[in-house]
């Protein structure tokens, strides 16, 4: 890249980045302000009176707010669901993308069609089912039902369809069975898609605040969104507390994303696919 073009390149990317990152930085800054400074007009950019008061409120001695416990629950629920989605969706997607069987089109159409049913319609029926299973007020209620979403299957099927078939052909010639092809060829080839799906599933679960409200009762079983809600509830215009909660909830996920990037970039191993 030429020097001038290089500068132009980074200027453009940097300028665009500003739009994306500024509100997030704003969140971070606000979390270190006092409640009244946060609503000052015109706003201050650097806190005049920086404080960790909002974080003290979050982690404060009040035994009603076990924030770290919520964090742990969120981690368990979100990773549990991401793993479950990866496992079941990849298998189903492989069958739908690469195998021929009776009723395949109907099965696929049915799975995709359910994506169109608004999630609100399913809340009450699912709540009643979870009750039958005895999963109310437990992490199972957060991990399992969400993994039934059609999203992962549809997503991976589309990726598998795009994979070149040559390697599978070669494996078949070497006598590999379906399971071996799936685990030794398809999954390694699909690292970017799997990593992306993992991040998306994790995040969807991590930020969900509607379903947990129905199925969790005990404060010690809460995840972060309903938990932080109980902290923020009354601080109606206490933006620092809201933003501190948001910071707490988003920074770890951002780190996770950066790590997963490695797998997404590694990609289809610019490997020796024969053209």
């Amino acid at each position, binding site marked *: *890249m030429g020097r001038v073009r290089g500068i132009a390149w980074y200027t453009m*990317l940097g300028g665009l*980045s500003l739009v*994306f990152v500024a*509100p997030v930085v704003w*969140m971070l800054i606000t979390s270190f302000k006092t409640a009244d400074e946060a609503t000052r007009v015109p706003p201050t950019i650097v806190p005049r009176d920086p404080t960790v008061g909002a974080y003290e409120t979050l982690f404060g001695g009040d035994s009603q707010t076990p924030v770290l416990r919520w964090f742990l629950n969120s981690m368990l629920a979100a990773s549990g669901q991401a793993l479950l989605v990866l496992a*079941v969706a990849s*298998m*189903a997607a*492989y*069958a*739908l993308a690469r*195998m*021929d*069987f009776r009723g395949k089109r109907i099965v696929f159409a*049915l*799975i995709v069609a*359910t*994506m*169109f049913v*608004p999630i609100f*319609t*399913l809340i*009450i*029926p*699912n709540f009643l*089912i979870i009750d039958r299973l005895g999963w109310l007020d437990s992490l199972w209620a957060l991990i399992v*039902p969400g*993994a*039934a979403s*059609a*999203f992962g*299957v*549809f*997503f991976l099927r589309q*990726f598998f369809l*795009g994979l070149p078939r040559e390697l599978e*052909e070669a494996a*078949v010639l070497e006598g590999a*069975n379906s399971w071996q*092809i*799936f685990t030794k060829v398809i999954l390694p080839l699909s690292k*970017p*898609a799997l990593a992306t799906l993992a*991040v*998306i599933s994790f*995040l969807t679960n991590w*930020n969900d*605040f509607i379903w947990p409200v129905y199925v969790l009762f005990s404060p010690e079983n809460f995840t972060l969104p309903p938990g932080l809600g109980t902290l923020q509830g009354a601080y109606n215009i206490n933006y620092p507390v809201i933003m501190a909660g*948001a910071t707490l*909830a*988003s920074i770890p*996920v*951002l780190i996770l994303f*950066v790590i997963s*990037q490695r797998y*997404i970039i590694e*990609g289809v191993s610019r490997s020796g*696919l024969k*053209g």
Partner: protein
Amino acid sequence: MVAVKAAPGRGAGLTPYLFLAPYALLFVTFTLVPAGYGLWISLHDWDYLLPGKPFVGLDNYRALFSSSSPVFDFFWQSMQATGIFTVFSVPLLVVVPLGIALILNRSFRGRTAFRAVYFAPYVLGVAVIGVLWRFLLDPNLGAVNALLGAVGLPDATAWTTGLPWAWISLVGVTVWWTLGFNAVIYLAGLQDIPRELYDAARVDGAGRWAEFRQVTLPGLRPVLLFVVINTILASSNMFGQAYLITQGAPGVETRTAIMYIAEEGLRSYRMGSAAAMSYLLTLALLLISMITFRLFRTKD
């Protein structure tokens, strides 16, 4: 790519069903049964706490088409809001992230950092971005108007309470928020395209644009279809942004279908009616998506 026939052994006998089984178990229990239950609910005057759940046949659906029913105006108003939002947000959310993904797929120093930057907003939940932007877009006290005023532009735009500003805000915030989501999907898709195809194109003397048309776009087609469908779905299910940033204002102009369905079902406990609305919306989306599928197919 040469289409290869399914080799023997793959798809034979029970194997496909075994691969499907674990997901199928979850799918039937937590999606298909509840969805079927939802259909059944839509045929009743249904409240899970009331002992009587009278069967009303298609009345809940009929009410949606009868201008004298209490739900008629509100429902179609909300469908219109959802329509406006979907029409303006989907093209942006399909095209802009593709551009970003293409840029971020090139190798240059710091690209991982940039990827994180564009994805960062999506990491925040809707509850957070809603509060954040309502605060920033406040017509009288917000930073956006203050900034515009500082550079000599109009500083009293009703970003959250007027039209068309409220729509511009909602579409803008949503693009800002979820652009990274579609971009990472495109990025993952781009990794799927064998390097060799680009090399071949280059040997043939194809320019950038030709390369994009002849290699990238065809290679991305399944992913593109996924992104289009998923974005239509996400946009037509929009709810959090409108409730937090505009609260449906002005009046009920920005109250989306899902917002209204949630109010009807979860606050007013008229779940039969809410379920009927859901399924009408589902039907509309299915039609739109079927057209999309068709379009992708005929391009073959």
